[in-house]
């Protein structure tokens, strides 16, 4: 037999062995549909919670972007030539981390101020304009890193000028986002670990049910790989089912949360529509579930096979 043919034969045998294990594992699941559905539901519930939290966090982030709160950095300069001030503003706008710059000469600032007073004559007794020239700088992004970088640049470009930034709320909001993301990671990690243990236990107990078959197969020279193959397929089926169930729960939860969330946004005069998780998120949840199913089955079956005679 040529080497190519031998390789083809081995590949064919490998494929057939996997097909057999996959078919038997599925048949075993269909023979006990209630138990299979329960284990799928358990995994689904476990995965749906962090996925739902993720959707909430994602929406909170989107919602905060909706609120008009661009951080600004104001640069107060000694009053000078208004044209020169405009030039400086145009120069700054060339920078990638700056969105736009408004130049407010001292004269205009005073006029604006005067316009806001009930009795504009009040300012006439002043000999000179006490207001500075101002550059109102809006950074390209509202994250603290960008705002901080812009502040550093302005401090370098305008030594002696007074800088005032209103990015405190950005820092607070970002800190809240980070906290939310951290809590989500912890919850997801703990639940994932719990799911893994449940799946490993289920796989080990299923393997114990196959004890007689395993004993006979071992006597006939079966390797661990051969014996655990149906369990691994079982883990993948359970993961797939659990993942799809979790995605169903996720969309159901999002649909139920939509109306109250949008009403709440409207109460704050924010025109906001709930972001539903996209296909990428759904696929991610299913993939994580399949990975958990496979890993749980691998751990459980490995343990049970070591214990088996």
């Amino acid at each position, binding site marked *: 037999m040529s080497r190519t043919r031998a390789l083809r034969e081995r590949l064919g045998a490998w494929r*057939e062995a996997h097909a057999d294990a996959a078919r038997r594992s599925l048949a075993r699941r269909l023979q006990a549909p209630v138990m299979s559905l329960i284990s799928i539901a358990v995994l689904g519930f476990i995965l749906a919670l962090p996925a739902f939290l993720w959707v909430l966090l994602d929406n909170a982030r989107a919602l905060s972007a909706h609120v008009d709160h661009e951080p600004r950095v104001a640069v107060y300069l000694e009053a000078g030539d208004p044209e020169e001030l405009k030039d400086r503003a145009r120069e700054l706008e060339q920078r990638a981390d700056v969105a736009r710059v408004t130049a407010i000469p001292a004269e205009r600032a005073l006029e604006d101020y005067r316009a806001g007073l009930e009795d504009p004559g009040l300012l006439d007794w002043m000999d000179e304009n006490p207001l500075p020239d101002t550059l109102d700088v809006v950074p390209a992004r509202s994250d603290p890193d960008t705002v901080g970088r812009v502040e550093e640049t302005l401090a370098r470009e305008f030594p002696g000028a007074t800088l005032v930034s209103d990015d405190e709320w950005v820092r607070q909001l970002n800190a809240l986002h980070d906290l939310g993301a951290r809590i989500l990671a912890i919850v997801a990690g703990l639940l994932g670990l719990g799911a893994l243990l449940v799946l490993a236990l289920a796989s080990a107990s299923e393997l114990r049910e196959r004890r007689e078959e395993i004993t006979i197969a071992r*006597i006939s020279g079966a390797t661990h790989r051969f014996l655990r193959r149906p369990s691994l397929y079982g883990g993948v089926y359970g993961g797939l089912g659990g993942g799809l169930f979790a995605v169903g729960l996720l969309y159901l939860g999002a649909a139920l949360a939509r109306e109250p969330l949008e009403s709440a946004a409207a109460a704050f005069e924010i025109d906001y529509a709930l972001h539903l998780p996209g296909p990428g998120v759904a696929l991610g949840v299913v993939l994580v579930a399949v990975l958990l199913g496979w890993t749980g089955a691998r751990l459980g079956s490995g343990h049970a096979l070591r214990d088996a005679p």
Partner: protein
Amino acid sequence: MILLQRVTKRFGSQSEALSQVSLKIDPGVMAFVTGPSGAGKSTLLRLIAGLERPTRGRLRVNGFDLDRLSARDIPQFRRGVGLVFQDHRLLYDRPVYDNIALPLEIMGYRRPEIRRRVRAALDKVALLHRETARPQTLSAGEQQRVGIARAIVHRPALLLADEPTGNLDPALSREILALFADFNRIGMTALVASHDQDLVERMPHPVLHLEDGRIEARTRQGAEA
């Protein structure tokens, strides 16, 4: 094929199930092990099949040193051995065909080859017409023949049988032993444990007699104690 040198087997703190047993069985030989219940026949067969490890002594079977066989090599060793049990040890959740196909699936044969070999083995034990039956619908004799078909379907070099006629009437027992003799004629080494001295002595094969974990006597050539 089988070589035991002063092999002792002790289970926990109990007395020795086998004491200082030495024997040699050449390739292509069929031999019997006889003795009363508890004499150590099953222990001897389980040691030779690699299902137990000796407490002391040297044990070489089909080219493998079983007293120091690594866990990784055990499957490879077992694929060269066919085992028949008194209680058949069939899987009752699947038909006869699937029971017999199991060793071939384990060894990675393709489906057409599995079909061909399973049908040949079923033909050999005269059960070709029962391949789709569930084992529980078969008689004791038929179940034992399914067990034998499973043990020989991958054409092992060594066939071990532990009381294969234990539950069968004399006519069926003779039929089963004749089957083993047939496999032996095509080159399989066979070692059959039986407590039925009369039945065994009617066969023209060497007999090793065990008493209290020791080989007490042997008859005919081909096996040395």
